[in-house]
């Protein structure tokens, strides 16, 4: 039956919960955005002038890059340090996350334990990585040790969630069959859980490596972790050299695009298999 509004018109868009939530969310975001502009801490910056300057700095950055304070050999070395930092923290995080995720999956571990671990990792993830790194810097000193510890913490928090959700997607029948045949918990893990979720684990780990590469740049710039981020920080804040910042940006851009391309290919392969 067609519903008419009080003015006698026929209603076209039904008032469902989903439609209403979409509208409320959109209006809420718009209002908050407008409000944020009224409270903006602009510090005497002329926006129009600064935007013009921004375009000019993009020109220097992308079309006139050069290397001055960083040599070619050093460029590759610091890029490698940043990649290494991202890789190391991904591996460490993945190892920790694998075991804890087994205890955080509701189909493998007791419900209460799974929920406790989930809540714990949610808190770990809520703290920005840079704060973890600075926190560890107090007892380990600024440098790669604090960066590895802090980034590993956040990675593990992220991967525990991702892994345990992948484990929970395993068909219950598979686990049931193995349990019925008298397999032990560890046998179930290595004969059923791991093979069934291996590709999902691999692709989540790769996603985290992409994130950790970016994070490693940021930690170099803000938390003394070394690598290319530190050179970018120096080029920006001390040498005020946009052209060198451009050359460094090209280096991270190239590697990040390579990672993204690999991730897309991995995703396509996974899609073809499943």
């Amino acid at each position: 039956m067609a519903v008419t509004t009080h003015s006698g018109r026929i209603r076209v868009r039904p008032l469902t919960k989903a439609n209403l939530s979409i509208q409320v969310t959109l209006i809420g975001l718009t209002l908050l955005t407008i409000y944020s502009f009224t409270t903006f801490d602009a510090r005497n910056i002329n926006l129009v002038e600064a935007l013009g300057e921004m375009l000019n700095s993009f020109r220097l950055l992308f079309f006139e890059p050069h290397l001055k304070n960083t040599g070619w050999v050093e460029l590759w070395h610091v890029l490698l340090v940043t990649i290494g930092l991202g890789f190391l923290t991904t591996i460490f995080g993945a190892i920790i996350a694998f075991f804890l995720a087994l205890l955080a999956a509701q189909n493998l571990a007791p419900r209460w334990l799974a929920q406790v671990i989930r809540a714990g990792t949610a808190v770990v993830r809520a703290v920005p990585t840079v704060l973890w790194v600075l926190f560890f810097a107090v007892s380990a000193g600024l440098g790669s040790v604090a960066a590895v510890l802090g980034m590993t913490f956040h990675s593990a928090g992220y991967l525990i969630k991702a892994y345990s959700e992948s484990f929970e997607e395993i068909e219950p029948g598979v686990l049931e069959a193995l349990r019925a045949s008298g397999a032990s918990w560890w046998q179930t893990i290595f004969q059923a859980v791991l093979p069934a979720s291996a590709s999902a684990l691999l692709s989540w780990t790769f996603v985290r490596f992409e994130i950790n590469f970016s994070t490693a740049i940021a930690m170099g710039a803000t938390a003394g972790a070394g690598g290319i981020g530190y050179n970018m920080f120096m080029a920006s804040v001390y040498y005020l050299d946009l052209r060198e910042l451009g050359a460094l940006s090209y280096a991270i851009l190239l590697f990040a695009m390579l990672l993204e391309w690999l991730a897309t290919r991995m995703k396509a392969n996974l899609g073809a298999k499943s």
Partner: protein
Amino acid sequence: MHLLQVDSLTKRYGHETLALNEISFDVRPGEFVAIIGPSGAGKSTLLRCLNRLIDISSGQVHFDGVNVSSLRGAALRRQRTQIGMIFQHYNLVNRLSVIENVLHGRLGYKGTFAGILGLYSEQEKQDAVRIIESVGLGEQIYKRCDQLSGGQKQRVGIARALVQQPKMLLCDEPIASLDPNSSKIIMDTLREINQNLGITVLVNLHQVDVALRYADRLIGIKRGQLVFDGDPNLITDHQIHQIYGSESGDLMLNPRERYAAA
């Protein structure tokens, strides 16, 4: 006077692939025409050339006296409002309600502004409601389309085409994704539309038995070529075999028997 005149219609993809090869036929107003042929024969391409969802490589298509093959922009859009289309996969906006999807059929009549805002007149809404009720979805007007069954979705598709007030319906495999029961409802609905409203129907079908049962006229397509055009009662088993080739198997062995049984 013909409603639709197709003259040496040819469609090439790149230089190599010839999807349609010099197809010619005419359709009179009020005809119910079934286009049969194996999958990949070019049936879908043919229908999409008629309303120019696909551009024509060479040849002419005249609809209602207008040369469709050379139309562009607003004139092409105006032409399309006269031709309704129904799809195998229904092609609805699944998150929207039945009536919203049906009213999409009126967008071709709207100016830019009214089209963007989706402003429909009360008359249009009343027509939409009437048509939704006539295809038997009166209870589902405000249901989201992803909550409907396949047969119901296809009826939404038909209603969307009907609010266009078209002179002709193009149906691209309308029952290929449906169970036999829903298929019968859809085909019966199409026949009623053809007989009661006088709308010309062109329907692509994979199943010969359905085509024999409903159509006034049969067009057979094989590898982009027109291989049969005529009365369904005159087509021989041998010709059906030729159209479908080795693909027919025992499914097509006795189409006439199945026709009699149905």
